[in-house]
C-alpha cells in the first residue's frame, strides 16, 4: 500500500460500504434503503476523498469532474441493484452508463464515450426496457403497486455483500500500491500514426502547396521525396528515438531528413507540418481496430450475426401450453371474455 492509505482505514471503509449495501438491498418488511445507500456512498466517497487528498499532495488542482461522475456512477449502480422495480433499475443503469461515458471522456477516449452512449444507452438498455415490460406480470387490478415476490426482496444480502466487499478489499489491496500517473492527454492520440496514413498526409501537404512528392513506404515510415527540390520529408513512426537527438516543436511529427539514406539524397531541410494535420482519437482507434485486430473484428461480426440468428430462432419458438396454462394465461392477460 506504500502509505497511500492505511490498510485498516481502507478495510474499515470497505466494511462500511458493505454494510451500507447490505442495508440498502430490498427487504420484505422494514427496509431502510436510504440509510444504507448513504452509508455506502459515504464509504466510497471517503475512499475517493483520501485518494484525492493523496493525489493533491503533488500540488495540482483536483479534477472535480471525475469525482462528480464517479459518485453518480456508483450511486446509480447502487440503485440498480437495490431498486425493487426492474424498470427503474434499467433506467438507473442508463445513468451509470452516461456517467461512465463521461469518465471515458476524462480518460481521453472520446470515441468510446460516444459509442457507449449510442450502443448501450441507446440500443441495449432500450431492449432491456422492452423485455422488462414484456415479461412483467401484469399487476392485478386490486393491487396495482404490488411487486412480484422475486423482486420484492433480495436473497442473502449480507453474505453477498460480504463476498463482494471481500473481493473489493482484495482488489484494492492489490492496486493501491501507488498512484501511477496517467500519460499526458495530448500525447495520447499521437500523431505518429500519420506515418501510417500517407493519403492523409498527402492531402494535407497538397493543401499547403507542397505537391509533387513521391510517397514511398520505407522501413521507418513514409518518405515523401520531391525529385525537383531534392527535399526529403520523412514521417517518423518512432518519435521517441529522435527525442534525445533533435530539438522539435510541440508538433510531434517532424519534417527533416532522418536517416543515412536520406542524407545521401540532399541537403537537410525541414518544415513545419500543416496546421490541420494530426490524428485524432477516432482515427487512432480505427487504425488499431482495423490494422491490429482484423481477425477479431471479423469474429465479432460473426458473433453478432450468430446472436441475431439465435435471437430470431429463440423468439420464433412456440411454447406448447397445456389447457390449464392457457386458461391461466388468458386470465393473466385480463381477457376472459
Amino acid at each position: 500500500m506504500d502509505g497511500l492509505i492505511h490498510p485498516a482505514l481502507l478495510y474499515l471503509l470497505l466494511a462500511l460500504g458493505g454494510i451500507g449495501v447490505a442495508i440498502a438491498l430490498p427487504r420484505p418488511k422494514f427496509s431502510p434503503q436510504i440509510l444504507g445507500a448513504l452509508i455506502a456512498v459515504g464509504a466510497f466517497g471517503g475512499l475517493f476523498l483520501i485518494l484525492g487528498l493523496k493525489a493533491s499532495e503533488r500540488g495540482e488542482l483536483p479534477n472535480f469532474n471525475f469525482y462528480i461522475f464517479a459518485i453518480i456512477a456508483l450511486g446509480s449502480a447502487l440503485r440498480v441493484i437495490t431498486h425493487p422495480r426492474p424498470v427503474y433499475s434499467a433506467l438507473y443503469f442508463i445513468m451509470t452508463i452516461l456517467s461512465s461515458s463521461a469518465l471515458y471522456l476524462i480518460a481521453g477516449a472520446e470515441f468510446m464515450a460516444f459509442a457507449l452512449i449510442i450502443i448501450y444507452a441507446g440500443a441495449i438498455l432500450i431492449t432491456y426496457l422492452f423485455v422488462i415490460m414484456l415479461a412483467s406480470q401484469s399487476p392485478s387490478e386490486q393491487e396495482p403497486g404490488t411487486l412480484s415476490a422475486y423482486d420484492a426482496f433480495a436473497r442473502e444480502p449480507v453474505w453477498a455483500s460480504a463476498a463482494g466487499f471481500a473481493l473489493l478489499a482484495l482488489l484494492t489491496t492489490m492496486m493501491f500500491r501507488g498512484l501511477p500517473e496517467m500519460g499526458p492527454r495530448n500525447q495520447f492520440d499521437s500523431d505518429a500514426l500519420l506515418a501510417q496514413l500517407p493519403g492523409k498526409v498527402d492531402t494535407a501537404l497538397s493543401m499547403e502547396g507542397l505537391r509533387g512528392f513521391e510517397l514511398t513506404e520505407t522501413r521507418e515510415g513514409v518518405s515523401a521525396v520531391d525529385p525537383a527540390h531534392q527535399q526529403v520529408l520523412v514521417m517518423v513512426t518512432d518519435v521517441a528515438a529522435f527525442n534525445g537527438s533533435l530539438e522539435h516543436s510541440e508538433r510531434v511529427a517532424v519534417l527533416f531528413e532522418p536517416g543515412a539514406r536520406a542524407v545521401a539524397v540532399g541537403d537537410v531541410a525541414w518544415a513545419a507540418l500543416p496546421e490541420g494535420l494530426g490524428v485524432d482519437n477516432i482515427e487512432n482507434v480505427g487504425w488499431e481496430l482495423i490494422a491490429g485486430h482484423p481477425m477479431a473484428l471479423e469474429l465479432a461480426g460473426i458473433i453478432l450475426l450468430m446472436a441475431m440468428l439465435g435471437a430470431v430462432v429463440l423468439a420464433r419458438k412456440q411454447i406448447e401450453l397445456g389447457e390449464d396454462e392457457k386458461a391461466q394465461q388468458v386470465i393473466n392477460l385480463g381477457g376472459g371474455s
Partner: protein
Amino acid sequence: MFESMPALLGAGSADVLPTTVGPGWLWLVPILALAGCVACGLCLAMRVRTKAPAWIVVGLLGIAFVLTFMGYSGWDSASAQVVKVFEWIGLSWGDSAGQSLSFNFGFYMDGLSWLWMLFVTGLGTLIALYASEYMQGDKGYARFFAGFALFVFSMACLVMADNLVLLYLGWEGVGLCSYLLIGYFYKKPSAVAAAKKAFIVNRIGDLGLALGLFLTFVTFGTVQYDELFALIDQGVAGDMARTPLSEMWQTWAIPLLLMVGAFGKSAQLPLYVWLPDAMEGPTPVSALIHAATMVTAGVYLVARFFPLFAFEGVPHYALWTVGWVGALTALFSSTIAMAQFDIKRIMAYSTISQLGYMFAGLGVLSTVGAASHVFTHAFFKALLFLACGAVMHGFAGQLDLRKLSGLWSVPGWRIVCVTMLIGCMNLAGVPLITAGYWSKDMIMAEAFVTPGGQIIGWILLLTAGLTAYYTFRVFFRVFVGPVSFEPGDEHHDDEHGHDNGHGGGGGFHPHAPGWAVNTVLAVLALSSFAAIGLYFTDKPNGGFVGNLVGDSTAGYVTPYGHHGADDGHDDAHAAAEGDVRFVLVADPPAHASGDATGGDHGADGTPDAAHASSGGLILGMDPHKAMYYISAVVGLIGILIAAVLHGPLGMGGLGLGTRTEAARSKADELLPALGPVARWAQHKWYVDEFYDFLLRTPLRVLSHVFHAIDKLLVDGLVNGLGLLPRAMGSALRPSQSGVLQGYAAGMAGGLVLLLVIVLIFM
C-alpha cells in the same frame, strides 16, 4: 558327536579317478530309450492296438542293455570316462574363471554309473517284458510303454550325467515319469492323488537338490563332475585363492542340501509318504521305479558326492543325518509294514525300510555296503513286486492278504510261489544262500565298527528281525495254508456269474501267469542268486560291486571297516587282524590315502585301531564276523515268529498247507494285547494325517486367507481408489443446486481464492 568325527575321519580318503574320453556312442543308451518313448507316442497317435509298443520298448531297452554292457566291458577301471554330447545350457559373462556357465549334455562313466546303468537297463528290459503280458488288454498300452521308456531315458540321464544339472534333469524326469505312471489309471481319484503327492513331495526334495546345486556352483564355479571332484580331491574351492574347503562352511552345507534331495527321491523319513501311495500305479512300475531304480537315485547321489559328505576337517552333519535318518526310517517303516494287509503296500514299506538300510550304510561310511544293497535289493525287490503283481493280476486286483491263501496249491502258480519264496528269503536275509543277507550284513557290520554308529547298528539289527517277520507273514498267509481266495474289485468278467467266490474260488477262476511273467520271475530269481556269485567274484578286491564302487567317486576307504572284501570266510583277513590290534586312535597312523580301491586294505592295519576304541567286540568277536552270526540268528527268529503266528507252526502242523483257517491267524489273537499300538501301526502311525494337519491344512487355509486378502484387501484397495472420484463427485453434487446464484457465488469464491494466492505469493 559331529565334532568327534573329523578327528577320527582323518583316516578316510576319497578317491578321484583320472578321466579319459569315453566312447562316443554312449549317448545311444539314453537315446534308444527316448526313441522307444517317441515310437510309443507314435503308436498312441496312430491308435495301434497290438503289442507292438511293448516289443519296440523291450527291443530297444535290450539293445541299450547290450550297449551298456559293451561299454562296461570296454571300460578301463582305472579312469572315469567322459563323453560330451552337446552343450545344453551355456552362458558366459567374462573371460576369467567362474565367469561362465556351461552345463553339458554329457556323460561321466565311472564304476558307480556303470553299476547303476547295468541294473537299470537290465531290469528295465526284463520288467518291460513282464509288462508286455501284464498290461495286455489295457487301453493305455502304448501310453504305458511310452512312460516306461521315458523313465529309462531319464534314469539314464540321472545316472550317466557328467554334471549336476543334467542329473537334475534326470532327477525331475524320473519324477515326472513316476507321476505319469502312478497316475496311469487316471480315472481312479486315488491314483491321481497319489501321483500328485509323489510329484509334489519329490519337488520339495528337488528344491534342496537345486539349492545344493547352486551352492556347489557358487563355491566351485562348476558343476561338472570331473572338475568338481578334482577340486574336492585337492581340498580346495574353485576361486582364484584356492581356499581350502576345510575352512568353508559350504563344505558341510552342500551335502546337507543334496541330502534333502536324496531323502525326497529315496523316500526317507520326513519325505517318505509318497512311496506307499505310489503303489496305485501298475505293478511293473512299482517294481521298476518304486523299488529297483528310481528310489535308489538318492543313494546314488549321496554315493556320488561321498567325497564331500565325508570330507575331512569339517563337521559331518550331513553324513550323520543320513545315517540316523536311514536307520530310523528302516525301523519306522518296518513297524508299519508289520501291520498292513495290502501285500503291495507291505512291499512298499519294506522298500522304504531297505532304502533306510542303504542310507544308514552311507551314513556309517560303507558306500560299498550301500551300493551292494542297492544292487541286490533291485533284483529281489523287483522280483517280489512282480510276483505280487502276478497275484494281483491273476486275482483281479486282490491284494489283501486276509483274502488270499494257499496259492501254493493252486495249479499254475508254482513258479510264482517259488520265486516269491526266493524273494522273501532275500528280503528276510536268510543266511548264506541269499544275496540280501550278505549286502545287509555288510551295512550292519560297518555300523558297529564306525564310532558313534553302534546305535544305528542295533536299530538296523532290530529292523532285520522285524523285516524277516513281516516278509514271511506275507508268504505264509498268501502262499501257504488252505486254498482260499476272493477276487478283487477289478473282477468284471461276466462269464463268471458271481464275484465272491469264497473257499476255493467258487465260480472265480484265477488266471495263472503266462510265459513272459514266469520267465521274468525266473530270471530275476536266478539273478538274485547270481548276485551272490557276483559278490564273491574277485573277492579279495571287494567283489563285483565293491570293485565298481571302488573305481568311482564313492570309492571311499573307510578307516574302520573291511567292507566288501572281508568276511568270515576270508582267511587272509584274520591274519591281517592279528597284525596290529592295539594302536591307539589318538595317534592315528599314516594311511594309504591315495589308495584307489577298497579292496586292498586287508593288509592295512589302521582300521582295527578303531575297532578297539569304538566298535569294540561283540560276543568276543570282531563285529564283522559277529554280525554274520547275529544277523542270521535275528533273521531266522523273525521267520520263526512269522511261522508261529501266521504259518504252519502256529496251527499245530509242520507241513505246508496245514493252516486250516484262511482268513485268520494266531496273530489276530495277540492283537488285543497290544492295545492301540497295532491300530496305530496299521494306520501308518497317522503320519499322513499328521502331515495333513501340520502342513497341508494350514497351507490350504493360508491359501484361502490369501485369496480373501487378495480379493478384499489388495483388490479392494484398488477398487477403493477407483471409487474415490465417484465418492468425491457425490460429495460435491449438492453444491450443484441449480440455483444460478450458487454457481456465481462459486465463481466469486474462486476469484477471491485466486487473488489471495496471488497476493500471498507475488
